[in-house]
């Protein structure tokens, strides 16, 4: 499955009912290190705003989008806070925090318990020289790397005292940063030395192009280190998202988050939005589709199974008297009954039903049924994926259509906006519908299934109606304006109903049809 090509849902104010920074969520980060308050802007209208906002829906999850500057500020704030506590310079504190994977409390605790050990392990141990590192010229110095001993050679050493010439140090750092993509744990070039190169020393030694890359790498490790932060996977997007959802909660919640770049993705698996289907099922489903959808289609259309050993057989010619290559069972291709019961009515099965044939067809029917069942869901899933792609093409044409409509009728730009809204609603709803089919495939049948299927059906009907209207020629569109606006709203509402219902059920725990899970998968 080419998931990169999926439609990026676009957020409308409507389905972002409660904004990301509203009340505490069900899975709110309880030990998150980030200080929300510092990053939020208070404007005195807070309470009023909250009262006016619609309540958060069951399928929505609290999250926050951070720009690289925000992330830098987060790091700086934490460094500043811990630095005063530990009485360490900022650049050393940053190294300590990276070593402790930004878990402030644990780091401070460990540091208070055994300062020496923590400093040593973090790469800050054994200070030989006390003065802050700087570029110096030392008499009689020979660089151990290049063996240069020219008088006046500029050299540098970290606090560990391993001194090398500035050129060698620069080359070494360039190799580490550019070549190996290393930043957080670049060690002193000295043999066996654990001392980590700090940001201040790096700034002294290298040019800005390399420091930029260095800080970029540091930022990447910061986000990667923190469980509640993830980069937006959209190409060229620089934002990171914070979401408090836990790994163990992913069976009960589908945490779709909306980046400021308009990309919506699942915080759990970073795949494009797949509500209402939980991550583990998405993974299974995608794997299954990758493995066998086309093959299964062909098998279903062209083969039958041996009634005895269930080997798949393709009849590519010849008579109805089949002999299974595998188990040597002889049977009739027409009625699937045993050949021995056919007597003399060879090659033309017009025989009255004997029991064996009925049984065989029963067994076959059952196994075919499970295949048909899969194909039922797959075809619908696939259909919405394809339609969403087509709608995406139409989306690109929408603007043209809107301009056309403006000139054809006397509508203003604002008045033709309904087309864009319809287009967005279509894509969003198809994305949801697509995943309802994957979800339904794994769902165990019970009373609630009917509610789910009704919701699904209602959404599907609404989407198809809207889609049909959307395709109408431009001259008819102006007359359909009100109707399309209504339909768009209706689609969006139906979508929320589906998502809200499934999200509630997921939270309570859903029973799955484990037979389709395959072996060893626990959801």
């Amino acid at each position, binding site marked *: 499955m080419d998931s990169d090509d999926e439609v990026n849902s676009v957020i409308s104010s409507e389905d972002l009912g409660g904004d990301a920074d509203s009340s505490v969520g069900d899975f709110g980060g309880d030990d998150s290190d980030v200080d929300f308050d510092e990053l939020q802007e208070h404007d005195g209208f807070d309470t009023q705003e909250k009262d006016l906002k619609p309540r958060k829906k069951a399928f929505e999850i609290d999250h926050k989008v951070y720009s690289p500057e925000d992330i830098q500020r987060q790091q700086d704030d934490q460094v500043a806070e811990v630095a005063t506590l530990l009485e360490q310079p900022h650049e050393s504190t940053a190294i300590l925090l990276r070593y402790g994977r930004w878990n402030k409390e644990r780091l401070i605790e460990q540091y208070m318990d055994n300062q020496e050990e923590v400093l040593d392990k973090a790469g800050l141990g054994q200070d030989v020289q006390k003065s802050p590192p700087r570029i110096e010229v030392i008499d009689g110095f020979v660089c151990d*790397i*290049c*063996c240069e001993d020219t008088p006046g050679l500029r050299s540098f050493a970290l606090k560990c005292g391993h001194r090398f010439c500035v050129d*060698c140090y620069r*080359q070494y750092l360039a190799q580490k940063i550019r070549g190996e993509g290393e930043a957080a744990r670049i060690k002193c070039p000295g*043999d066996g*030395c654990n001392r980590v190169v700090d940001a201040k020393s790096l700034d002294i030694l290298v040019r800005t192009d390399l420091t930029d890359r260095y800080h970029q790498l540091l930022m990447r490790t910061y986000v990667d280190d923190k469980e509640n932060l993830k980069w937006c996977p959209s190409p060229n997007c620089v934002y990171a998202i914070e979401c408090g959802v836990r790994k163990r909660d992913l069976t009960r919640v589908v945490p779709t988050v909306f980046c400021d770049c308009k990309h919506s993705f699942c915080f759990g698996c970073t795949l494009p939005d797949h509500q209402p289907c939980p991550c583990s099922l998405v993974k299974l489903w995608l794997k299954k589709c990758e493995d066998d959808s086309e093959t299964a289609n062909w098998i279903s259309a062209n083969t039958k199974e041996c009634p005895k050993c269930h080997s798949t057989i393709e009849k590519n010619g010849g008579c109805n008297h089949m002999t299974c290559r595998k188990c040597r069972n002889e049977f009739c291709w027409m009625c699937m009954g045993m050949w021995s019961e056919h007597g003399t009515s060879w090659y033309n099965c017009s025989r009255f039903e004997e029991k064996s044939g009925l049984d065989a067809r029963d067994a076959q029917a059952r196994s075919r049924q499970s295949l048909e069942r899969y194909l039922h869901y797959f075809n619908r899933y696939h259909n919405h994926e394809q339609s969403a792609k087509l709608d995406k093409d139409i989306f690109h044409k929408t603007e043209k259509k809107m301009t056309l409509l403006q000139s054809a009728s006397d509508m203003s730009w604002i008045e033709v906006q309904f087309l864009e809204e319809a287009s967005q609603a279509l894509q969003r709803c198809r994305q949801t519908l697509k995943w309802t089919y994957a979800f339904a495939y794994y769902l165990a049948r019970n009373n609630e299934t009917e509610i789910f299927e009704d919701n699904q059906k209602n959404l599907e009907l609404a989407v198809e109606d809207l889609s049909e209207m959307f395709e109408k020629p431009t001259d008819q569109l102006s007359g359909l304006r009100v109707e399309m606006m209504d339909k768009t709203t209706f689609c969006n509402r139906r979508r929320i109903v589906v998502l809200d219902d499934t999200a509630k059920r997921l939270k309570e725990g859903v029973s799955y049809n484990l037979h389709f899970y395959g072996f060893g998968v626990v959801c």
Partner: protein
Amino acid sequence: MASMSSKRLQKELTKIQGTLPPGITLVSAPDLREWVMDISIIDNPIYPPNETYRMRFSFSPSYPIEAPEVVFVVLAAPERKIPIHPHIYSNGIICLDLLDSQGWSPVHNVESVCISIQSMLAGNTKAERPPGDAEFVRSNRQRPRDINFLYHDPKV
């Protein structure tokens, strides 16, 4: 910067053409890209004292910032075999953290690498190849520097 590796190697060459520790000899250094060294092991029954092993050092222009590529090589005359060791594959590739970008320090040099490998062999007690040797030798097309070895055994 080609001048970096050449200047350094020139200095190293001058030094090892003078004195080298026992059991380590420079065979040839035709240019500043590839050197050939011989080592022999004393005091370990696994390696007969009359046997000598040949190593090829290849240097990139960014040596010594980057580690050299070091492998054992087979030769018919004079006879040179690949020493048997749990970290040396039968195609001569050595699994040693010192030669990996993580374990390498630019302070190391040809002599110190030879000494390290010599002592790695001298301290060896197992006359065996690494696990999965046959498979690795058959399938490996990578250069030693690109292989991600797992240094799971800090003792040897």
